[in-house]
């Protein structure tokens, strides 16, 4: 895929990621949606579907309740796929944990955005007290644009890491790679156990 194509894919992910908390929450940003779709775009539908399923199921026991931010699964699965399916790319056993790390990093960014929005309340109060239009729609669009820009930067970073795939893989010692391979081999069962636990049924 060309650089422009990859850039467009990264931009699409950045916009779709807003669906996770900021806009809509139609689940269009979930790994089970993004994974297969991005996998097809990048040329490996099966890997996309598998990584999408893993991140989806592992995240089911960490819902966004009461303002809590879970690991950003959209960024995790997209980063993992950009890493694994980049040129030359990294093996899937490195891509999975690397994607999770980037997903946690994105979560920290979102927490900072949330903290910075504390200034919006007093700003709106001031405008309304002066009889001005509070501009709530414009404020929402600005905040979403900032978040999308941050996500786009993370996606570009993941694309760059994927392009350095050969160097990255060379840094990982062989035995560590073996360990990661075992981790990936057992991941379906860990994800399956997470799915079972998410239903909280008493047997």
């Amino acid at each position, binding site marked *: 895929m060309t650089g422009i194509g990859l850039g467009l894919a990264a931009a699409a992910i950045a916009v779709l990621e807003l669906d996770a*908390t*900021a*806009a809509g*929450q*139609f*689940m269009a940003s*979930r790994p*089970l*949606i993004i994974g*297969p*779709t991005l996998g*097809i775009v990048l040329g490996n*539908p099966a890997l*996309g579907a598998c990584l*999408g*399923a893993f991140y989806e*199921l592992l995240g*089911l*026991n*960490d*819902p*966004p*309740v*009461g*303002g809590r931010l879970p690991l950003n699964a959209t960024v995790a699965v997209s980063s993992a796929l950009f890493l694994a399916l980049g040129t030359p790319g990294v093996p899937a056993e490195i891509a999975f944990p690397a994607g*999770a790390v980037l997903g946690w990093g994105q979560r920290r960014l979102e927490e900072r955005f*949330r*903290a910075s*929005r*504390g200034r*919006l*309340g007093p700003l*709106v109060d001031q405008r*309304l*007290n002066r*009889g001005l239009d509070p501009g*709530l*729609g414009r*404020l*929402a*669009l600005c905040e*979403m644009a900032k978040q999308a820009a941050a996500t786009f930067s993370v996606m570009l970073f993941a694309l760059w890491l994927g392009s350095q795939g050969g160097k990255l893989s060379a840094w990982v010692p*062989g035995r560590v790679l*073996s*360990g990661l*391979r*075992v*981790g990936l081999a*057992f991941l379906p*069962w*860990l994800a*399956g*156990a*997470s799915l*079972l*636990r*998410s*239903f*909280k*049924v008493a047997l």
Partner: protein
Amino acid sequence: MPDGVRQMDAGVQGSIFKRLLLIQACWNFDRMQSLGLAYGLEPWFKSSGLEDREQKKALARHAGEYFNTQPYMASFVAGMVCRLEDERGHIPEAERPARIKRLSALKAAAASALAAVGDALFWGALRPFSAAAALICGFIFWRRGAPYFGIGMAGCYLALYNVPVLWVRWRGIDMGYRWGERLPFELKEYPWQAWILRLRWAGFALAAALLILALAAANHKAAQAAALAAYALVLKKWPAAWPSLYGATCGLGFLAALAGWA
């Protein structure tokens, strides 16, 4: 409707519905969803016939109060607030401050109750159920050799999840408006816990079926089944412990490689 209180117009309901999709766009730690709720209520105040100054005072009240609930269930609260604001406008001036206090208290109580129901229903039951059903769908397509089985999986997930969610988000505005103060009592009439339990059991059955099919297709069935059981036991006690379990598995693989077994 009581005298003077308006009907919920479909056009205004549509505007509120669209705006409530962005209820979390300005989420912050101080007031949480309050700015998003105020944004959602704006069309109602604009169509209320109130003076511009009164509209802004009402908006300021809602933007300035702490508010947080499950995002889909916010529709009920928005509908209720529209109704109570309308009723407030038709009572004597002297009684309005007390009515405003009551509205705030009702809003907070409804948000809290709806959050508990919404979290359990949508995050705790519908989302995992949709994921399990989508995976079964994907598994069937994959076994039949469909190259883009992931798209079937994604479509199944989106449809199963969004049909009830969109219904709740749309109808919730109207229902909240019709019920007004009676919202908590009317909500109690619905068998939320029964629905949640049925969804959980249905999802659990689908998940169990999927895992049995996967085990049947796997090599080294005993080892895989043992791993699944071990993970399930740990996650039962520590539900969010998957990173540690993943790390431990990688660690065991590393030790096996050191010992020359892998």
